[in-house]
């Protein structure tokens, strides 16, 4: 299945386009994903689907990478949901500024405000996750829709959608963000997430288009066509399930890349106005000279948490890839 992390990824902030068709994402090996066991035989479809689900769980529970990645992610999700509740102090509550990390203040307090960094980080995880999820959902939905439509219908619609994709790829994400943020001085988390999604879909569309093309050429689609079914029902009932695992992997990667893009926006002060994300923390730390003053606990732990969140997503992705793709299992 080989869904790769795009090589340029969040590097391309200046133009924003996480554009380079992520290496390998378009290359299909779905043929293998459906192969299931070695002795498939014929068999009733329902029984087969059931067996496949069982098999998925079987391999998923034995995949170390998946278990570790998903485990770390689960902890962060817990923090994202309950973070503000388990935070020892309020985000704005003040203490003596610049306290070193201690049992009372796990990550110390910042300077010159004297707020508890640990409490802020717990809250920040939630905002970063929200943006990541929103960005992934929007980029995923738009990318899937455009990719499906282009790959399935082909012809002029394909040409048109490809043109659109290429134009969006070359449009600088940051330009738009700056223009919009000047207008929208009161930005919400929703705004940032949707923006990242709406500008981040092209590579998904490209990959999905290629996948749809290869799937379309396969026998079962011909069979469905012969039986006189409507195109939309074939896409929904035959193609989509075959791509389900692939789509899942795409979402995991989009989630990670959206969070990284958001950190960059937030760091430059282009983020939501009323939030307190990990990127915002680093922004404030940098603005208030935490570096020069040696208040390292203001920016190192939150950044490390963010890195861990993204790494865990990547590892989950590799693990899932191995589970979905039997070829990779034995490595």
């Amino acid at each position, binding site marked *: 299945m080989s869904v790769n992390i795009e090589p340029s990824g969040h590097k391309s902030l200046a133009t924003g386009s996480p554009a380079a068709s992520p290496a390998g994402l378009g290359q299909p090996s779905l043929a293998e994903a459906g192969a299931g066991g070695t002795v498939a035989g014929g068999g009733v479809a329902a029984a087969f689907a059931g067996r496949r689900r069982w098999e998925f769980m079987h391999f998923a529970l034995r995949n170390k990478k998946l278990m570790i990645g998903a485990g770390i992610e689960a902890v962060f999700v817990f923090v994202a949901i309950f973070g503000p509740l388990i935070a020892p102090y309020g985000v704005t509550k003040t203490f003596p500024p610049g306290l070193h990390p201690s049992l009372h203040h796990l990550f110390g307090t910042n300077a010159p405000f004297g707020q508890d960094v640990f409490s802020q980080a717990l809250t920040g995880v939630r905002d970063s996750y929200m943006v990541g999820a929103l960005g992934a959902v929007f980029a995923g939905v738009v990318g899937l829709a455009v990719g499906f439509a282009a790959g399935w219908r082909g012809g002029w619609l394909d040409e048109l959608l490809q043109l659109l994709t290429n134009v969006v790829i070359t449009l600088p994400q940051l330009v738009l963000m700056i223009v919009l943020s000047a207008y929208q001085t009161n930005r919400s988390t929703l705004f940032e997430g949707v923006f990242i999604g709406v500008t981040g879909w092209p590579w998904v569309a490209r990959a999905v288009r290629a996948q749809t093309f290869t799937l379309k050429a396969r026998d079962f689609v011909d069979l469905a066509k012969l039986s006189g079914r409507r195109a939309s029902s074939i896409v929904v009932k035959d193609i989509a399930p075959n791509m389900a695992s692939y789509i899942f992997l795409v979402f995991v990667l989009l989630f990670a890349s959206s969070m990284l893009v958001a950190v960059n926006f937030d760091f430059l002060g282009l983020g939501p106005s009323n939030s307190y994300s990990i990127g915002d923390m680093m922004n404030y730390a940098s603005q208030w000279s935490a570096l020069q003053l040696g208040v390292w606990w203001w920016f190192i732990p939150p950044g490390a948490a963010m890195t861990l969140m993204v790494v865990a997503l990547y590892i989950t992705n590799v693990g899932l890839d191995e589970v979905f793709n039997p070829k990779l299992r*034995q490595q």
Partner: protein
Amino acid sequence: MSVRVEDLKIYYTTLRGEVKAVDGVTFSIGDGEIMGLAGESGCGKSTLGNGLVFLEGRMRHAGGHVQLDGQPLPIGDSRAMEAFRLRQVSIIPQYAMSALNPTRKIGRMTADLLKSRGVDYRKVLEEFKRRVRLVGLPEDVLDRYPFELSGGMRQRATMVISTLLNPSLLIGDEVTSALDVSTQRAVGEMLMEFRDRGYVKSTVVITHDLSILAQIADSILVMYAGKLAEKAGTATIVNNPLHPYTQQLLASLPEVGLRYDEAPLLGIPGRPPSLLDPPKGCRFRERCPFAFDKCVEEPPFVELRPGHEVACWKALQEAQVPGGPMVAQEAAR
């Protein structure tokens, strides 16, 4: 006998245990013989064929021997096998249409391959071109990239490359599966031509399509669930099959000469057993209309008549009963 396979076992390692895809098979192939290897998908025929050339990561040589031209063939030792590949054993893979590196011209790729095998490409170039023409391709395919050719052309190019060094044993894995009827016939004729010209000595044609074997094979070996079911000359298999499985395979053919797909095979009720933990006794028992109490024991694969081997208690019993069907068949001739 140029190929002799004795009690060969090839297992797949999976996380759930070992799949006994080839579980003790014994047969031989003569010089100049084209042997068909038939059976449903998942019966182990592809594993057997591929295993004779290249055991992939998850496959394990679990027992038995293979002899080629009187020499042992070390199929379990991939390193040692390298020297044999292409020169003595070769394969036209199932994926022949996508077997060529998309970013190399066909001639260049062949040259790279031969060079890595220590063969001077210039010395075989003339022969290469002659064979390319023989399979009906223009000589200039050597200067073309694979994607510039049609699927059928790519397959023929692959056939030529695989047999370029005149191997003793050639495995053709589902070479006719993805083709239409007339192309199938053409590919079958090419395999016969290769044999007639001495490009290959023994050929194994793996397929689930008995009708193509009826046209090109000298003998047919039927496999079921990792075991041999029946082996005999093509005419015997087609006209007087003894194993109930072979009979059902033939019955599920609409008509010899027409191609059938996997689907009609569902005409045989039931499914092959799991090879993770194969049942004791005859493996076809569950699906066999003639099964009787003897079948809980494993039937031996024995030569009931000269050149006709079968693993079935019923056939064995009838052969021993005077006036049984064997005699009746004899009389009918």
